[in-house]
């Protein structure tokens, strides 16, 4: 349904760089503790190009901490996270964005006073160059860059079907639309990996279906790899390629949706154990 404009696809094709790596993202035995609390306790997984990987687990099991570790907001005490074979550790969060890791947040973290267009243009930040002086003068390359990126942003608006909200400050928009704008801002970064933190939390069935469609379109047509953290099991089981289940920071299962569903450890984590009554 969604129209993916030529320009978005063309930029996908143009992306080059070495493909000489085992996995796009390789998380190796990551440990993260806050004082005594172990948030992540030896999690390993990998994500390949164009894959839709889901991470599920009860609340407080360390899913968002994993995202923050990938973004280098948290620095894991042990283990390593490799991006195309190179370690991410020691980088500042904004560098991970430059490398091509984009993210949406569990609690919407848009810039509420800026319009939809401005929010998406802010997503283009890492793909633009103009400095403050060139921007202040609005001349030559800086101006051309602004206008070109305004066009790219319009493609994303078109893709996510948010044309009518274009000029609204996002703080005024309904929750479901804000979630969509946030997805758009992440797409504007031209990422190779998209971290989606509960993209359908608090949405009704129709909004969830819309979002699922956008996620699948992003994977299929734009070829962007996705890590999805979500509590909506129906959605996860339907669209994920592979699933990692974590509980209290520990990985308890990894595999295809059908495998994970049958895994006794997973059932135990979600439903608890049967009491020994005999």
């Amino acid at each position: 349904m969604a129209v993916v404009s030529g320009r978005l696809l063309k930029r996908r094709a143009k992306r080059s760089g070495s493909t000489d790596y085992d996995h796009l993202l390789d998380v190796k035995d990551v440990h993260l503790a806050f004082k005594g609390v172990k948030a992540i306790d030896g999690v390993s997984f990998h994500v390949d190009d164009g894959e839709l990987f889901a991470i599920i687990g009860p609340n407080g099991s360390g899913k968002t901490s994993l995202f923050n570790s990938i973004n280098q907001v948290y620095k894991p005490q042990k283990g390593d996270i490799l991006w195309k074979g190179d370690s991410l550790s020691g980088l500042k969060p904004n560098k991970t964005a430059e490398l091509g890791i984009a993210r949406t947040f569990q609690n919407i973290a848009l810039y509420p006073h800026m319009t939809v267009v401005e929010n998406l243009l802010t997503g283009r930040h890492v793909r633009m160059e103009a400095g403050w002086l060139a921007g202040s003068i609005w001349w030559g390359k800086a101006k051309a860059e602004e206008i070109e990126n305004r066009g790219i942003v319009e493609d994303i608006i078109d893709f996510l079907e948010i044309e009518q909200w274009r000029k609204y400050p996002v703080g005024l928009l309904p929750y479901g639309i804000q979630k969509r704008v946030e997805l758009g801002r992440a797409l504007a970064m031209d990422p190779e990996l998209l971290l989606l933190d509960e993209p359908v939390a608090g949405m009704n069935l129709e909004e969830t279906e819309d979002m699922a469609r956008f996620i699948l379109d992003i994977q299929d047509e734009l070829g962007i790899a996705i890590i999805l953290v979500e509590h909506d099991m129906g959605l996860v089981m339907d669209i994920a390629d592979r699933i990692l289940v974590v509980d209290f920071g520990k990985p308890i299962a990894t595999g295809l949706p059908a495998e994970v569903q049958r895994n006794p450890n997973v059932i135990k984590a979600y439903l608890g154990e049967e009491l020994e009554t005999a």
Partner: protein
Amino acid sequence: MRGRPLLYTRYEADQAILNTVTKKVMVLIFLSALLLIPFQVLPGLDFLGENDWLRLLSTVAIFIIGALGLNILLGLAGQVSLGHAFFMGVGAYVAAVLGSDPEGLRLGFGLPMWIWLPAAGVVAAGIGVAFGPAAVRVRGLYLAFVTLGLVFVGDYVFRNLISVTGGAEVGRTFPPLEFRLWKEDTPLIDFASDGAWFGIELTSEAKTFYFVLAVAILFMLLAKNLQRTRVGRAFQAIRDRDIAAEIMGVDEVSFKLRAFGISSFYAGVSGALLASFVGTVIPARWDLFLSIQFIAIVLIGGAGTVAGVVLGTAFVTLLPRLVQDATLWMEDVVETGDNLLATLLDLVVATESTDFGLINTLPGVGPGLSVFQLNQVIYGLLIILFLIFEPLGLFGIWIRIRNYWKGWPFTY
């Protein structure tokens, strides 16, 4: 295009600063009105062309430049700074050292304005960036406190660096507003004396007004462009969600430093122009009250918008004059009339040292507030009222009026 004024067929038109016909027309009318002010031809507004009003309007233009700077820091990047007056002082003294002729102990190189004016901005920006690392680590109230320290450090330095500032009580003279190519005797363009431009006789006040107006408009354009391009958006992203901004690729520390630098540049230029415009300034001019005036401008006008800055500056800068005029008028009524109005106003103004009144027209004598104190009270009250009732400031009120008339006669 006709019939659908909001239909854009090019992104360039959509992104233009004046992207609607209404905006274009209004700016045109406003600009022509400003240009006509010195000729005293505007019906009802001809008093603005009088010399004291022209000087006041020139002050407004100079303050706009400084306020635009604070708006970049406070309105866009969301960083509170009480140190704005300090950077203005730095700019002023850079201008003095570079532009003035040496007098006695005081340094001076007598360089032309095209050197001292940009240099005032650049040096202030340099100090802003150098100070930045201390400031970017703290936020909110703590940042306000750190920058508050700047004002007091500055006050001490300005008082004691006599070879530059002239000392606490004396002050020093600043270079006049005039264009020279180099140190030749007769300036190319001289704003400080009467004369003819293109065959039109102008007073020095009118020439100065035109000059500072042009500089203010230039800085307004620069500020507006900054706001709508990459760096300005990064500032706003930091203001709205700093951690998200960083994950989205904005280097928080480096962009906060840039905001400090750019803001200080504007402050430096504004300070240099102000000192040069006034002529002689004592170090106490760059005090905390000046910083607070700028915060009042940004908050009352509407943080984050260039139009808001213009409205706020006009309001805050003209307010003392209005208060003074109102006081004088009330005093006049009290002293000449004997009707009910005079009796009521007698309770408001004190005309003699034994007279009761909220406002005292005899500074330092008797009860009541002086006009200066009254202004401070009004600034404080206005900041509180605007923060509570109209966080978008005068600009927000304007938006509401505009939206009302857009929808008129319907209510939405």
